[in-house]
């Protein structure tokens, strides 16, 4: 049997290459080996011309995922990541599928796990949607000279003035940081999210792992989550934030629960999640008290009672086939905000097959949901958040034109902190110190710097959105929300155009 081991050997598609002309190993530099948290780089003794023994960096070719940490940290620019894809002669049996089967055969079976969002070839609709711009008949607006407003209020609004107004979240930028839990991320990242959103005037989401007591002073800019595991949920928790979100599902793994392994449950995490140290934190696939829409309604109102109707209640769902009627049901169940997460949404860990094959694109989901709420004349009663695969400010603005009130971004938050999207968030080895609590790694995040990065990102996207709006002659974002008239499709078929509610370019 042992001889068969080699048959299943996975050849990692990446490896670091060292330019020894540039490398300073002769003076004892070993930074790259130290920075590589995945064990790809080791130090190999070599005899120099002078007869002395030096330790040069060496690619083990076992673990590289192209996170680029070593490349970025090398002071001499001596490292580049090479791609060494396995080749198969068969056009149908691509290396991806062959590798996956080898992995499963070699590991005594098991579900393939990955991090980050879906990578499949499905159409990115955002790329097929173009904005309008002013020419002649209408002056474009220069955001540097004229006021440009992107402030957004999230929450239920009455149909008409005169009956008061329900609690609202005030967003100075219609972009919020999506749910990522303490445990999946470390406390430093949470703190950076909290501080950046406080300074810019928007919101971050704790995810389902509780809300660390040291961050509760940022409660006004925090959305706390209640997921099926109910981690860290207490009356104080509910009252500590500006809004409460019930997480039904997420785009990367619709219908699937979560699992934080016991070895990650440190003292701080155990305290925040309110579970014993070292125990596995399991989030069941469904909420075991929500098996139907009427159960959801009860939970929404239980939360509203507990928070004395002072904060909006949000419900987050994954974008699935029937998203429009589901959203309508949630709106009628009393939610103030509904977050819809497209299948491109990220995660720390998800079964590969679920990630790649379940859910629908956010562009179609948000368009269908917005249209349905309008047909039922209840669009005003709920705010919509689009998320899952928003890659840039124009994606965010297109989502708003299609009908979203605001967007959640999460993978961009990680990338802003250095992440190279290597899909190994669940390994606990994140070389950037983002998705790990390991001492020695987590410290790689400097909270002050991380806060600046996130603020810069929000600033940049906000400015780009203002530029785009100015070119369309729009000076306030309300005038763009659901304004599909300012969009045209390129290369989309009739069915797609109908769902998106836009005309083809040329009309």
């Amino acid at each position, binding site marked *: 049997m042992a001889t068969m081991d080699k048959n299943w050997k996975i050849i990692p598609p990446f490896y670091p290459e060292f330019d020894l002309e540039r490398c300073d190993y002769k003076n004892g530099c070993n930074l790259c080996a130290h920075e590589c948290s995945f064990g790809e780089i080791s130090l190999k003794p070599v005899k120099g011309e002078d007869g002395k023994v030096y330790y040069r960096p060496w690619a083990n070719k076992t673990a590289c995922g192209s996170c680029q940490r070593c490349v970025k940290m090398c002071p001499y620019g001596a490292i580049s990541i090479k791609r060494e894809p396995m080749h198969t002669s068969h056009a149908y049996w691509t290396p991806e599928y062959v590798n996956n089967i080898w992995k499963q055969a070699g590991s005594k079976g098991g579900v393939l796990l990955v991090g980050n969002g879906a990578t499949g070839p499905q159409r990115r609709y955002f790329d097929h949607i173009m904005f309008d711009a*002013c020419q*002649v*008949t*209408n*002056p474009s*607006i220069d955001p540097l000279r*004229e*006021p440009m*407003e992107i*402030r957004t*209020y999230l929450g239920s*609004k*009455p149909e*008409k*003035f*005169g009956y*008061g*107004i329900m609690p*609202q979240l005030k967003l100075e930028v219609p972009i919020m940081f999506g749910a990522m839990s303490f445990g999946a991320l470390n406390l430093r990242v949470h703190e950076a999210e909290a501080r950046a959103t406080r300074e810019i005037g928007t919101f971050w989401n704790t995810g389902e792992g509780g809300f660390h007591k040291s961050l509760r002073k940022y409660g006004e800019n925090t959305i706390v989550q209640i997921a099926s595991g109910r981690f860290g949920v207490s009356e104080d928790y509910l009252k500590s934030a500006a809004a409460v979100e019930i997480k039904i599902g997420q785009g990367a793994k619709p219908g699937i629960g979560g699992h934080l392994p016991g070895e990650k449950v440190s003292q701080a995490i155990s305290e925040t999640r309110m579970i014993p140290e070292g125990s596995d934190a399991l989030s069941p696939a469904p909420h075991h008290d929500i098996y139907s829409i009427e159960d959801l309604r009860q939970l929404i109102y239980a939360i509203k009672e507990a928070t004395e109707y002072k904060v909006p209640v949000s419900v987050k769902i994954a974008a699935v086939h029937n998203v429009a009627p589901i959203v309508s049901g949630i709106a009628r169940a009393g939610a103030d905000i509904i977050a819809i997460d497209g299948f491109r949404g990220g995660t720390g860990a998800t079964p590969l097959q679920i990630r790649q094959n379940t859910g629908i694109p956010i562009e179609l989901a948000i368009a269908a949901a917005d249209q349905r709420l*309008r047909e039922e*004349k209840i*669009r*005003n009663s709920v705010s919509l958040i689009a998320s899952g695969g928003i890659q840039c400010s124009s994606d965010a603005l297109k989502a708003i*034109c299609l009908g979203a009130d605001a967007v959640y971004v999460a993978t961009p938050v990680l990338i802003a902190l250095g992440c190279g999207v290597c899909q190994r968030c669940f390994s606990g080895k994140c070389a950037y110190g983002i998705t790990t609590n390991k001492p020695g790694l987590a410290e790689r995040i400097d909270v002050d710097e991380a806060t600046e990065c996130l603020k810069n990102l929000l600033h940049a996207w906000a400015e780009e959105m203002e530029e785009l709006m100015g070119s*369309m*002659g*729009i*000076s*306030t974002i*309300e*005038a*763009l*929300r*659901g*304004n*599909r*008239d*300012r969009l045209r499709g390129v290369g989309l078929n009739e069915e797609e155009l109908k769902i998106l509610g836009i005309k083809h370019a040329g009309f």
Partner: protein
Amino acid sequence: MCGIVGIINTDRKTIDGSFIREAIRIQRERGNGLGGGFAAYGLYPEQADKYAFHIMYQGEGRHSATVRQVEDYLESIVKIYQSQEIPVFPNDRVPQGPYFKRYFIKTIEEQIPPDKTEEDLIVDIVMHINMMGGAFVVSCGKNMGVFKGVGYPEDIADYFRIEDYKAYMWIAHNRFPTNTPGWWGGAHPFTILDKAVVHNGEITSYGTNMRWLEMYGYFCLLQTDTEVISYIYDKLTRKDELNKLDACYVMAPSLWEEIDRANDGKKRSLRQIYGPAVVNGPFGIVLTHNEGAIVLNDRNKLRPVVCARAGHTYYASSEECSIRLLSPEVDEIWSPRGGEPVIIDLQPEKKSAEVA
């Protein structure tokens, strides 16, 4: 570019249509012959208690099947007191256009659904007719009417011989269409009930406004952005019972920064609730209704509007020349600031009845 003019006599003293014809003619430069139109108030004093429907029929004129279809529909739901062709005078500048007919109608109590008002029913009737295809309600208010078509406004005035009509409030429009076709139904003014709008500009928020209005039973079928303004104003003032100033504020809101500075809770709520009713893009409008007129510019003042008063007559115009032509001496003349509405109220109806 378009040109607009309004002449409003607050004492409800009537003048004939030749004045407004001259006022808009002098702005010929602002149009291109693809649309002109007029709205007149105080037009049908003898029929003032009835809704005056001006309906435009496309196709084969008086013999078109649509005429029968619309009239059957109207007879099924309201009482028609009088119906007549609107006289037209085709000439070498405006050849024969669509067939126009006016109807004076009253609603029948039993036909009004319990959850709706009489005016809701009229709006529903207008939407129903517009959706039939081939027939379009040009105006439907009481004691007012609209005359519009494809041509320069002075030629449209001659086509309808508007000098034969008398009114105490007139608005006119000279069209230079750029984003939607020049067709008879697409000329301004746009109306719903007693509200009529003439507009210079382009409404970039059209998509948002239109989809919001659809939730409340207003369907934009005339292929022109301006239509949304009359519907938004009607929804805000009639259905939601906002006052005129608040309605203007909703359409051209203050900056959030200003609202924050003043800590104005009412304005904040209005803007939060009525975000989808914000009218964005350049505009200068004169909006008229049975009790008066409103002149409004976009917040950035991207279109010209000049207002003036001479005695009890108010003027609003894209260009001062129209005002000076009619009234070389005025008591005041000013250019309203962006987003600041000018609200002109007519004297209550009673007074004009006494004069008459």
